[in-house]
C-alpha cells in the first residue's frame, strides 16, 4: 500500500499473530498480518471460512479469549499500540473510537432489554449521565440508520424486530460513539439481498459522512468489490494478496485470488463447468509446509512445497505472497 499523498493511517497493523492453543500445541489462526487503514477508506478483508479473517478482526479489537492468544505484533490505533493498553483502557476505546459490527445481531443484542435501554446503557458506560439526553441520542442514532418511527422502536425488544432491523440497531449502537474505525464482520451475510442492499447503502452513507475507516470482512467478493477501496485476500492465516480493488480483482497475481474469482458464476457461459479450486482449505492444525496454498495450486512447484514465499510488491501498490505469480496479462 503506498503512502505518498495519503495521511497517516488511522489503524496500522504490523505482524499480528494470533494462535489457538490445544493439547498438541499452538496453531496460528492469524499468521503475522500487516495492514493499514486510512480515514474514510473501506478495506475489504476477503476469505473463506477458516481463513482467519474474523480472528483478524477480533484480534484488532483485542477480543481474543483463551484458548486463543495474540502472541505477536502491533495494533497501532492513531499511533498508539492497543496491545500495550490495559483491559480497562481498551474498554474505553472500544465502543467509542473503535467499533465492531457482527454477523448475527441476535448474539450482540441483549434479548431481555428494550432497544432504548441497551443504547442508553452504552452511553452511560461512556459517560453520558443525563438519561433524557441519552434517550435523544439513541433515537437520533436509530433514525440515522434508517429505522422508521425510532421513538417507538426504543420501547421494543430485539425479538420484535426483523433481521434487517436488528442489524440496523446493532449498527446504531456501534455508531453511538462516532467511531474512527468500524470493523464490520460479515454484517449482511445473514440478510436477504434487498435488505443487504439497504444496510450497505446506510453504512456507506454513514461512513462517508463521518470519515471513519472501515474494515469490511466478507466471503462475498461481489459485495467487497462494490464497497472497498482496497482488498486484502486471506488464506490460511496469511494475507496472500492485498492492493487497490481494481488491481486485485481485474489482474490478480495470486493463484488463490484468481481461483476465487473464477469460482463465482458471473462471466462463465451458462451451464459450462466453472473453473474450480480443487480440494479444501487446510484445517488449523494441518497447515502444509511452504506456501499454505500449494496443495490446491495449479502452479505449485518444489519450492512452493519447501518455502513460504516472500512478500513481493508491484508498482500499483499491491503486495502478494507467491513464488509463481499469475502473469499480469492473464485477466480472469
Amino acid at each position, binding site marked *: 500500500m503506498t503512502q505518498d499523498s495519503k495521511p497517516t493511517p488511522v489503524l496500522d497493523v504490523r505482524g499480528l499473530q494470533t494462535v489457538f492453543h490445544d493439547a498438541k500445541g499452538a496453531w496460528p489462526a492469524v499468521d503475522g498480518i500487516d495492514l493499514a487503514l486510512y480515514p474514510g477508506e473501506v478495506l475489504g478483508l476477503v476469505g*473463506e471460512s477458516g481463513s482467519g479473517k474474523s480472528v483478524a478482526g477480533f484480534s484488532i479489537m483485542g477480543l481474543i479469549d483463551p484458548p486463543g492468544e495474540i502472541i505477536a505484533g502491533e495494533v497501532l490505533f492513531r499511533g498508539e499500540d492497543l496491545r500495550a493498553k490495559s483491559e480497562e483502557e481498551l474498554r474505553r476505546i472500544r465502543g467509542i473510537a473503535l467499533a465492531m459490527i457482527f454477523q448475527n445481531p441476535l448474539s450482540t443484542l441483549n434479548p431481555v432489554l428494550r432497544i432504548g435501554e441497551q443504547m442508553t446503557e452504552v452511553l452511560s458506560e461512556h459517560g453520558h449521565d443525563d438519561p433524557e439526553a441519552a434517550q435523544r441520542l439513541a433515537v437520533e442514532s436509530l433514525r440515522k440508520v434508517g429505522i422508521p418511527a425510532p421513538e417507538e422502536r426504543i420501547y421494543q425488544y430485539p425479538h420484535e424486530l426483523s433481521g434487517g432491523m436488528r442489524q440496523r440497531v446493532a449498527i446504531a449502537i456501534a455508531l453511538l460513539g462516532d467511531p474512527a474505525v468500524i470493523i464490520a464482520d460479515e454484517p449482511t451475510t445473514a440478510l436477504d439481498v434487498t435488505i443487504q442492499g439497504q444496510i450497505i447503502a446506510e453504512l456507506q452513507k454513514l461512513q462517508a459522512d463521518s470519515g471513519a475507516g472501515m474494515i469490511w470482512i466478507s466471503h462475498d467478493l*461481489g459485495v467487497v468489490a462494490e464497497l472497498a477501496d482496497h482488498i486484502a485476500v486471506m488464506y490460511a492465516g496469511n494475507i496472500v494478496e492485498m492492493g487497490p480493488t481494481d488491481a486485485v480483482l481485474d489482474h490478480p497475481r495470486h493463484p488463490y485470488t484468481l481461483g476465487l474469482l473464477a469460482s*463465482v458464476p458471473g462471466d462463465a457461459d451458462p451451464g459450462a463447468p466453472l*473453473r*474450480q479450486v480443487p480440494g479444501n482449505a487446510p484445517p488449523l492444525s494441518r497447515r502444509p509446509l511452504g506456501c499454505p496454498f500449494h496443495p490446491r495450486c495449479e502452479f505449485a512447484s518444489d519450492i512452493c512445497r519447501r518455502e513460504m514465499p516472500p512478500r513481493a510488491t508491484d508498482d500499483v501498490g499491491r503486495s502478494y505472497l507467491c513464488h509463481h505469480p499469475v502473469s499480469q496479462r492473464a485477466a480472469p
Partner: protein
Amino acid sequence: MMDSQQTAAGRTEVTSVPEDPILSMRNLSRVFTRQPVLAETLLKLLGRTPDIPKLRAVRSVDLSVRRGEVLGLVGESGCGKSTLGRMMAGILPASQGALAYEGAEVAGLRGTALRDFTLGVQMVFQDPYSSLNPRQRVASILAEPLKVHRPDLSRAEIHARVDAALAEVGLDVSYRDRFPHQFSGGQRQRIGIARALIVEPRFLVCDEPIAALDVSIQAQVINLFLDLRRKHNLTYLFISHDLSVVRHMADRVAIMYLGEIVELAPTAELFADPKHPYTRTLLEQIPSVRNRKRSFSAVKGELPSPLAPPPGCPFHPRCPAAMPQCSVEVPQKRQIAPGRTVSCHLYDKDQIST
C-alpha cells in the same frame, strides 16, 4: 382475494401448456395454522368459527417442470420457495390444488405408482450439517433408502450401490465407514447428493444446496450438479436466493414473492429483460465483482408478513412503479411472450393471444 386468485389460475391454464411435464402443479396452495387452544375448540363445538390466524405460505401456484430442465426458483427468505419445493418433493401435503407426476395426480397414487413417485423425486437440503444423522456411518446413511424401498436387493448389491454412489459424487469409497463429522461442508453436501441419487430418481428438488458452502467449494458442487444432470438426464428444481448461481444453472427461472410466482421466463430472457418490478429490484441488488464503488440505492421496506399480506398486488408497498389500482386489485398472471408470464398491472394490456 380468493376469488380473484382462482380466476387468475383459471385463465393461465389456457395460455401455457408446456410439452412433456415431469411434474405439474395446478392451483397449489399451502396454509399453515396453529392448533386451536381450548377456548377455540369449545367455540367450534358451539358451532362458531374461531379466528385462528392462517399463514398462506404458498398461494395458488400453477407451474410445470419440463423433463430434463433445470428450473430455478428464486425468492427471499419467507417467500414460500422451500414450502413449494417440499410439496413438490411430496414430503409436505398441499392444502389445496393438485400435483401431478408423470401425468398422474399424486393424491390418487397407490402401490407401485406411489413408490415410483416417492423414489422418483428426491430432495437435497441446504444444511449439510443437520441433514445427516451424526451417529450413522456414511455407508449406513446411503444404504437406508435402499433397505426401506428395495427389499429385493441383497446386502452385496446394496454394498456395491453405496460404493458406486460415493464414486459418483467424487468421494473416495474408503470413506464409507466414516461419520459425518469427519467431513468438510462440501463433502457432506456430496453425501447428501449421493443419498438422493442412490434410489435413481428422475427429479431432484435442490433447496439452496450450495448456500452454506464456501465460494471455492460452491463451484465444485455446482460442477457436480451439472455433471450429474448430463449423465443421468435429471430434472432439477433449483431453489436459491443467489441469482448468479441460478443464471448459471437454470434453463428457466420462476421468481417468487410472498407465496406467489410473480414472473416466469427462460433464464437468458429474464436476465436480459426483467419485467416484474420485483425481478428488476432483485437483479439490481446482486453484488457483482464487475461493479466498483457503487452507491447502493436500496429498495424500500421489507417483505410483509405472510400472516397479513397487503391487499392487491403483494409487492405494491415496496414497488417503485406502483399505481393506484395496485393496492386494490390483484394482478392476474399474463403471458406476455411465448414461455413468459408475469403478474403485474404494468402488463395488463400486453397479453398475447394463443
